[in-house]
């Protein structure tokens, strides 16, 4: 009888053992799946899903992804992070996509010592004075500088007008970085017009810009408003070139803007034509196969955030958040989908910038600007 019991219990243990080994590693993602920047979140999630197919396990354990929708709102972003850390007990977090929401969410992650990697939040404040917050994208002081150089040198503009969203940290900061560099290069800002997220009528702003007749319009705003500004500007006879930032690279810019967004230039993270790593090439193929869509910047950047976290977990050899953080901060020449990524001590990567434009209703790659 004793023999039977011990054999049975050993059998049970043997059956349960694989269960112990495959206890999942929980990684959280807080993304804007609805709201003003829903496109970014949805594209990011599809990128992360494909990335998970490429690398579903790490340290012999399956990855368990937990997604929380931030509704493109700062408050919901902060709550999402709390939920991921407290309820889902994640070891690392991917997110958010826009600076305002990432700044809001990063506070809790920093205090709870959970590493966070943002795919595309570019405002410098996101990682400033924080040890646990990282990103895989360039930052806005650089984006503003490059945009100003692009405007002045390549597009030959001596004067510019600004239009931006005063309720978004990203837009306000990027506009001011552009302004500083543009005036330092000898350019003149003729008008600075503002609006709030969700505004749809830009006729007063466009009228004002039209009346000062600048050489170029700098609109560091998100895709919906950018498309509508371009549309309303063209309808009002304002045909000056429009330069915008990485926030414009969503398919909605093309579908909402139509012919009005032809020849819009923008500084960006990525274009599938600049892939030069083996991981990138493999990911591009798999993405097309899995989703049927062309690989876009936000999916690729989010995939890189996922890959870089997994790489850090591998190098740390454990799922301890502090060790993951150490490994993340010593990331060197990681071959991501969007290029080689080396993380500096301040949590920001050394990353090239891409210039794209809209041509014939599609995003077209123009050039890469090395860091």
């Amino acid at each position, binding site marked *: 009888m004793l023999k039977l019991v011990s054999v049975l219990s050993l059998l049970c243990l043997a059956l349960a053992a694989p269960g112990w080994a495959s206890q999942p590693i929980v990684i959280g993602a807080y993304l804007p*799946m*609805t*709201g003003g920047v*829903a*496109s970014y979140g*949805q594209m990011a999630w599809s990128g992360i899903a494909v990335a998970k197919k490429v690398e579903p396990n790490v340290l012999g354990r399956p990855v368990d992804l937990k997604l929380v929708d931030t509704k*493109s709102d700062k408050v919901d972003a902060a709550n999402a992070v709390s939920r991921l850390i407290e309820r889902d007990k994640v070891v690392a977090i991917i997110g958010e996509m826009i600076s305002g929401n990432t700044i809001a969410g990063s506070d809790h992650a920093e205090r709870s010592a959970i590493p966070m990697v943002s795919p595309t939040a570019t405002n410098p404040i996101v990682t400033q004075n924080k040890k646990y917050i990282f990103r895989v994208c360039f930052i806005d002081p650089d984006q503003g500088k490059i945009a100003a150089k692009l405007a002045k040198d390549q597009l030959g503009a001596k004067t510019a007008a600004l239009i931006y969203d*005063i*309720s978004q940290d990203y837009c306000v900061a990027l506009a001011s970085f552009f302004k500083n560099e543009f005036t330092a290069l000898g350019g003149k800002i003729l*008008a600075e*017009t*503002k*609006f*709030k997220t*969700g*505004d*749809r*009528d830009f*006729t*007063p*702003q466009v*009228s*004002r810009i039209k*009346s000062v007749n600048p050489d170029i319009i700098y609109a560091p705003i998100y895709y*919906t408003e950018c*498309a*509508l500004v371009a*549309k309303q500007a063209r*309808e*009002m*006879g304002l045909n000056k070139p429009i330069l915008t930032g990485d926030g414009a690279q969503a398919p*909605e810019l093309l*579908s*909402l803007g*139509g012919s009005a967004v032809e020849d819009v230039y923008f500084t960006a993270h990525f274009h599938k034509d600049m892939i030069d790593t083996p991981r990138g090439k493999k990911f591009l193929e798999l993405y097309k196969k899995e989703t049927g869509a062309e690989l876009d910047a936000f999916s690729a950047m989010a995939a890189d955030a996922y890959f870089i976290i997994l790489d850090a977990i591998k190098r740390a050899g454990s799922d301890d958040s502090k060790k993951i953080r150490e490994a993340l901060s010593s990331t060197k020449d990681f071959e991501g989908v969007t290029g080689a990524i080396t993380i500096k001590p301040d949590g920001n990567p050394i990353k090239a910038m891409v210039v794209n434009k809209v041509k014939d209703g599609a995003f077209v790659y123009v050039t890469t600007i090395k860091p």
Partner: protein
Amino acid sequence: MDLAFVLQQLIFGVTLGCLYSLIAIGYTMVYGVIRLINFAHGDLLMVAAYIGFFGIVIFHLPWPVVFGISILLTGVLGILIDRGAYKPLRNSPRISALITAIGVSFLLENLGIVIIGGRPKSFPRPALFEGDLRFDQLILPYLSLWILGITAVLLILVLLVIHRTQVGMAMRALSRDFETVRLMGVDVDRVISFTFVLGSSLAAVGGIFWCMKYPAVEPFMGVIPGLKAFVAAVLGGIGSVSGAALGGLLLGLAEVLIVAIQPEWSGYRDAVAFTILIAVLLTRPTGIMGEELPK
């Protein structure tokens, strides 16, 4: 600041004002008849826009048919909301109906998110509404002319219905004295349903034109226009249809002109509408065309 600039802003202000008027008329009629501020009204705009989008882009039906279906379906939705959410609370305190209205609004918005998704869609603009007239510096879009024309026609129609038909008389009587009208044997529920159909149809027209002017269709697109239409209705005198039309025009003009004159305030544009609301409620709560409150 030259004449051409001012005229241009006037054109935009009047266009925006007409859109607000169309939505405000629905708000004001419902309030007049059952003393309820139907906060779900703005979301009817969104429903109409989505029906329009699906009809034209997904089902490839001709646009006049789609617009007609959209207006009809939105009117029916108005009745359904009344029957489902407001009628059971007819004899409850007014605050209950108000909270229910907010609930219906959230329901519609979140149904939109769940069923259709949060990413904005592009509303197609039929060729008839494209293009503009140019007078030297001045641009007069055909769409603005259409909006002005349709608003005027619908306003006159609604006023005729209210002042020259039996059901209109019933509506006016209900807004004076609800109980007595019931006692007089009038089928109050039918009159209220009619009011909702009329108001919702106007909101649908407003929604379709709104989307032709600002082509981004998304589940929360009706919130701000709905709120501004509410302000317009209060400004003009809640309960009065011509007041709503006037309030809408004034609000549209104020929003565009104030921002045009003071470009630094363009980020605070919505504040203009709500400042007007506060000012009206503090000084003359019954609005421009409402009766003076007894002292």
